[in-house]
């Protein structure tokens, strides 16, 4: 391939190299930064599409996305840009495609509260024991896509277990069978 190195160049040839290449400094921030279209910046969550399922929260390696419950019947999806590593795993795993990646990276600020983005969901309450377990939108999402779940989708996991155990008992006359 002809990639041999000749060890006999004179140091002055540096000047010819520099001359032909010119100055390569990017005058950022007075010029556009050197960025391609593929660059991964921060994410944007579409409020209208997010169902509050928490898949992104499970996938996020540094816990930048968190799903927080509050006492007032809401579940908040909190995106903390300070922890985000811009890996876009959340985009990979979101079932409804609510998260979009942007190319923004100039996010520095002197007020850390600028870096928190909150998305507030209404919590769904269990129809039997009235304890919160998921978001209203997620329940609706599951129910519309999988009508066979309508028997238990409005119950929280504990009540579902109890109902299942009762059903088995009723069917087989007891669990010890």
């Amino acid at each position, binding site marked *: 391939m002809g990639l041999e190195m000749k060890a006999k160049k004179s*140091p*002055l040839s*540096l*000047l010819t190299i*520099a001359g032909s290449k*010119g*100055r*390569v*400094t990017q*005058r950022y921030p007075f010029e556009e930064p050197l960025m391609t279209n593929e660059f991964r910046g921060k994410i944007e969550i579409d409020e209208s599409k997010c169902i509050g399922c928490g898949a992104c929260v499970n996938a996020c390696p540094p816990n930048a996305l968190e799903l927080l419950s509050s006492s007032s019947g809401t579940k908040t999806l909190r995106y903390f840009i300070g922890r985000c590593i811009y890996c876009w795993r959340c985009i990979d795993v979101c079932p409804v495609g609510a998260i979009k990646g942007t190319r923004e990276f100039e996010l520095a600020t002197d007020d850390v509260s600028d870096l928190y983005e909150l998305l507030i969901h209404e919590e769904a309450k269990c129809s039997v024991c009235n304890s919160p377990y998921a978001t209203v939108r997620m329940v609706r999402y599951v129910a519309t896509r999988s009508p066979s779940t309508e028997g238990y989708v409005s119950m929280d996991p504990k009540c579902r277990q109890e109902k299942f155990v009762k059903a088995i008992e009723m069917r087989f006359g007891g669990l010890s069978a």
Partner: protein
Amino acid sequence: MTYGSMLVSIGLALALALPALLDGVERKLKAAIQSRIGPPIHQTVLDLLKLFRKELVLPRESMHILYMAFIYLSLSIVAVGSLIASITLGSMELFIASAILLSIIQAIHVAMPFTTYNPFSIVGASRELVLAVINESALLITIGLAILVNPLMSPPLIWRSTYFLLLLELLIASYIASGRTPYDIAEAEPEIASGWLIEFSGPLLGIIIYANLLRKAIVKLVVGIVLAGLITGNGSMGLLLSLIAMALLWVAYTVVSTIVGRSRVDVAPKTMILMHTTFITLLIITYVLGV
């Protein structure tokens, strides 16, 4: 005010103002060779001003460094002044005085970091000492020979090879004395973390950097004056030529220092001794033979 002293004042003002700007040109040129934009030309002036605005922090038990720094600065200014005066007025005595001042300045330059309580400083200073002893001796011998060869600072009728050898040897000695790669071992070696400069900060560093720039100007002015003496003689033309020569040499030295790497502390003295003895011997031989 006589014409001569007016010229000397103007020349002195230029010679004191130019080194900072020339350093900016050096950085810009270095950046261009490295394919980057580099700082603006007045950056060194801005740096010095910034340093003087900072608080003074001295290493412990080191008030003497402050005194030495001031002496370093004042002697450098005087040396510059006497050099300017020597070529403007055609005074060989002032030229000899400048050479003596140069050696005193070099001695203080080495003594300052030597008396600081920092292992890096002392290592840097000892390296500087080794280089300075060899190079300064060569420089002084060559200046002495220059005085011998052209005592009246006036252009000779025929150009002997002695003159060329003289200028060549002066160029080499002054390049090494200006503390650039490959002989910036005392300051820039990464393992001694700035070497002799390490303990200086704030206004003290500002004084030392400026005095260092003057030292660089002095060694180039010496070459410029000898050259001017051989071409146009003394007077206003001599002054002009010396200053132009100083600026051009500054640019040339920059280019040379950018395209080579740094030498090593054990190899550098050997190379220097070899070069200097060769050229000085040749110089003496050609002078004696009248060639």
